[in-house]
């Protein structure tokens, strides 16, 4: 999800300077000595009532018990809880780096784990427990450092008292306090530290003092991942656990009219086959078996007659036509501008763009493992929206939220798919457990609910299809006198708990982000229509920027070229170092590092695009040719302004991976289409992600900065497709206005 509408409002909350500062969560820290030695540093989440998400998370925030954030073990290793999921973006490593920096321990002392659902682990800005909007490090930047610094302060105070020396005489390093002849490990000071008062103020390190932040650290799970020992949701195994697969209707929200499971039940290892409610008011048939294979074999043998449901009979080609019509009468206005300058303008440019539905297709298919207990339920999965999922599961199982324990496991990618405001697949999994328990007349056995790849590609919750129509009017000098922009696309937020925060004046802010900022200060009118197309939609990595960046960055390139102005020079002429210093710095860095403008081999062309998302600016300069009717990207140079980079090794990977994620959207076949309400793709064969041959070398350069960190998981995605399109236009003379690209 995109928090930009929130971060703008709450920018002050995380922009506090380093150095001596009042502890913002004073009173919420609690240190407890462990009986066998060691120390627990717990933190109680303050109640962030200033942001209204509480309203749907629960009317009365429970008075929570403090939860462990840091645990100093008797062997002086330090266990750190990470309040995010890690699905590749590197939170598992980056957040412990922040604690380690201020606590003054070495990274090899760190043991990190993903926190379960709990009050203490709610995002300190959003007030719900979630991962999204590239906000993990930005929002927890002060939180994790302050906890580390406060703990260190108390350990030093304990040592100083014990040795009868001043705290000023004490130094720390590698988890040891020293003063003159004295030294003591943190673990040995635990009992005394727990008796120290929580400090009023902590002194945070300045950027110049950083020993860990800003220096590349390998992922803390790199060794486990290389040995097949990293346990994902898919790998959870419980005693007596069964596997469930669900047969969903061919059309969204469809219902079972009747079904025959006689043949399916003959498959060895099959336990039960029964009807269950599914997402969007539909119903389906669940198959319970001893493992995936018998469940799959049985699933193929269930005979079902379907009724259509809420999903309708959408066809992609009809949708384009209906969106074109809708663009002529936009419903809501996001930016106003006087349209009269376009009357009689000497030059006009009209462009229409189409972006298809896209599936996230993370490598690990969706899954969740449920265990019913005496007191409620436990669920193990790649939890991305713990707070809303907990409510959804509790509702489905007729439990209270606090009776549902969620264990956050690492996930094999998400790209937004596990961040469903409707908790679609978790409700479905819980419904299977519930119905099965009712059929058994006892508590259901532990159950792993799995999706196949076909379930995933056909399962909806797509990046919505969008139509953009832009009319640009220019005067005699080639200056833009009106940029009249209309976007048609489904709202991501309508009907979800997020609706009241995201939709303002009829405009879903996640659809206009990336254009509404009007970074080139143009006379811009921006209007939208959100049709109620009955296809489930969801944010996909970089959200609205996946389409808005393409339109803005290709169209300004086209305008610059038409005026015979170099597109880099065109951009720099519109930005000043005062108004857009980070854009200028990122673009200039990319230009300098790429050799932009130098002669390329025949059949190659340079392309440029610059885009800010999640408070980070990414400039790509690409070297592109065409091979076998496909774009071939030879080299990408990235200039990135993400303020202080916490872990450069992971940050580089996020930009490289983001670039490839965006490049995927340009490749032939990478689109979800519907015909008569049925999704036409089902596998990696007809929805083909990039393979190694498609992957360019991406050289990533960060603008040096000591300002508080901004997002990194998503900003690498948006500018790659427009940079490629701008290069291809030089090669073919054609402007590509539809994704994926068709170079025929």
């Amino acid at each position, binding site marked *: 999800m995109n928090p930009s509408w929130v971060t703008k409002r709450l920018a002050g909350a995380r922009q506090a300077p380093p150095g001596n500062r009042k502890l913002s969560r004073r009173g919420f820290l609690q240190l407890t000595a462990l009986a066998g030695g060691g120390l627990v540093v717990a933190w109680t989440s303050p109640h962030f009532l200033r942001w209204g998400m509480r309203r749907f998370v629960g009317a009365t925030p429970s008075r929570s018990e403090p939860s462990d954030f840091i645990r100093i073990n008797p062997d002086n290793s330090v266990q750190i809880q990470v309040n995010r999921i890690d699905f*590749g973006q*590197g939170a598992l490593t980056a957040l412990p780096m922040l604690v380690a920096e201020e606590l003054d321990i070495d990274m090899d002392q760190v043991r990190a784990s993903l926190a379960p659902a709990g009050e203490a682990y709610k995002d300190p800005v959003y007030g719900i427990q979630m991962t999204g909007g590239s906000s993990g490090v930005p929002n927890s930047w002060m939180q994790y450092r302050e906890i580390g610094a406060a703990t260190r302060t108390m350990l030093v105070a304990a040592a100083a008292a014990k040795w009868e020396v001043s705290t000023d005489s004490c130094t720390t390093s590698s988890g040891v306090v020293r003063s003159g002849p004295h030294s003591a490990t943190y673990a040995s000071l635990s009992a005394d530290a727990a008796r120290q008062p929580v400090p009023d103020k902590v002194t945070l390190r300045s950027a110049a003092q950083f020993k860990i932040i800003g220096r590349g650290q*390998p992922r803390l*799970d790199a060794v486990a*991942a290389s040995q097949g020992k990293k346990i994902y949701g898919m790998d959870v*195994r419980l005693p007596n656990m069964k596997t469930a697969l669900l047969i969903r209707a061919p059309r969204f929200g469809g219902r079972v009219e009747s079904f025959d499971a006689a043949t399916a039940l003959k498959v060895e290892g099959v336990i039960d086959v029964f009807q269950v409610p599914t997402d969007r008011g539909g119903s389906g048939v669940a198959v319970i078996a001893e493992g995936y294979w018998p469940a799959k074999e049985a699933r193929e043998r269930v005979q079902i007659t379907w009724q259509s449901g809420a999903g309708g009979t959408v066809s992609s080609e009809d949708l384009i036509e209906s969106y074109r019509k809708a663009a002529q009468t936009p419903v809501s206005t996001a930016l106003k501008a006087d349209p009269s300058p376009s009357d009689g303008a000497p030059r006009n440019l009209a462009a229409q763009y189409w972006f298809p539905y896209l599936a996230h*297709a993370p490598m690990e298919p969706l899954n969740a493992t449920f265990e019913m207990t005496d007191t409620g339920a436990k669920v193990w999965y790649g939890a991305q929206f713990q707070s809303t999922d907990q409510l959804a599961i509790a509702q489905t199982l007729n439990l209270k939220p606090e009776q549902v324990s969620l264990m956050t496991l690492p996930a094999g990618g998400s790209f937004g798919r596990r961040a469903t405001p409707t908790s679609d697949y978790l409700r479905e999994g819980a419904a299977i457990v519930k119905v099965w328990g009712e059929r058994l007349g006892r508590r259901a056995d532990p159950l792993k609910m799995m999706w196949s790849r076909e379930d995933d590609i056909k399962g909806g919750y797509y990046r919505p299809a969008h139509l953009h129509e832009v009319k640009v009017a220019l005067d005699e000098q080639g200056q833009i006198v009106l940029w009249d922009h209309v976007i048609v696309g489904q709202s991501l937020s309508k009907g979800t708990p997020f609706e009241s925060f995201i939709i303002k004046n009829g405009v879903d802010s996640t659809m206009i982000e990336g254009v509404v900022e009007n970074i080139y200060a143009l006379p811009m009118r921006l209007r939208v229509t959100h049709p109620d197309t009955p296809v489930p939609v969801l944010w996909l990595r970089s959200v609205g920027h996946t389409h808005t960046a393409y339109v803005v960055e290709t169209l300004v390139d086209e305008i610059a070229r038409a005026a015979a102005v170099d597109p880099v020079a065109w951009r720099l002429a519109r930005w000043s170092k005062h108004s857009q210093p980070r854009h200028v710095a990122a673009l200039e860095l990319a230009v300098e590092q790429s050799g932009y403008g130098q002669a390329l081999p025949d059949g190659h062309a340079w392309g440029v695009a610059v885009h800010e998302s999640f408070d980070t600016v990414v400039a790509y300069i690409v070297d592109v040719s065409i091979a076998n009717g496909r774009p071939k990207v030879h080299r990408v140079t990235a200039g990135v302004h993400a303020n202080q980079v916490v872990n450069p090794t992971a940050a580089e990977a996020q930009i490289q991976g983001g670039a490839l994620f965006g490049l995927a959207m340009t490749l032939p076949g990478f689109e979800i289409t519907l015909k008569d309400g049925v999704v036409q793709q089902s596998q990696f*064969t007809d929805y083909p992600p990039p393979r*190694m041959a498609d992957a360019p070398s991406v050289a990533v350069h960060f603008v040096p900065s000591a300002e508080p960190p901004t997002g990194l998981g998503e900003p690498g995605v948006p500018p790659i497709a427009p940079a490629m399109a701008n290069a291809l236009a030089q090669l073919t003379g054609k402007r590509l206005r539809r994704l994926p690209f068709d170079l025929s």
Partner: protein
Amino acid sequence: MNTLNINGEPIAVAADASTPVLWVLRDNLGLTGTKFGCGIAACGACTVMVDGQAVRSCVLPVGTMAGKRIRTIEGVSASRAGRAVQAAWIALDVAQCGYCQSGQIMSATGLLEQTPRPSDAQIVEAMTGNICRCGTYQRIRAAIHRAAESLA
């Protein structure tokens, strides 16, 4: 009952002969390092080695495995090439989400066991069956070269 040779150990498995090796490894034996990604040999997440060849275990019936040596990610460090690949993966911090990386490591190990100093083109050819949605291909390429150098 099938007796399989997995990572050098004879292991008896009660599974229907048509069951793919992937599900025997994961569901019957608890060897969850081998991953499920697509079920149709299109993504490579389930790659294991059978008699030294990297193959997709999701379409490999267990009944065809009599007398064959299966090596999984859990046993890849038994070979010099496997250890070199794992070390290069860690040194270059290849993995992001990591889910496809068992399969990537198996394919890379298979490549280096056959072709100790592969060219970029040979790497692309050997690795083309392995999808990574995080986009780690650039580091995979570099890590394979690094592993090859360490084996020289």
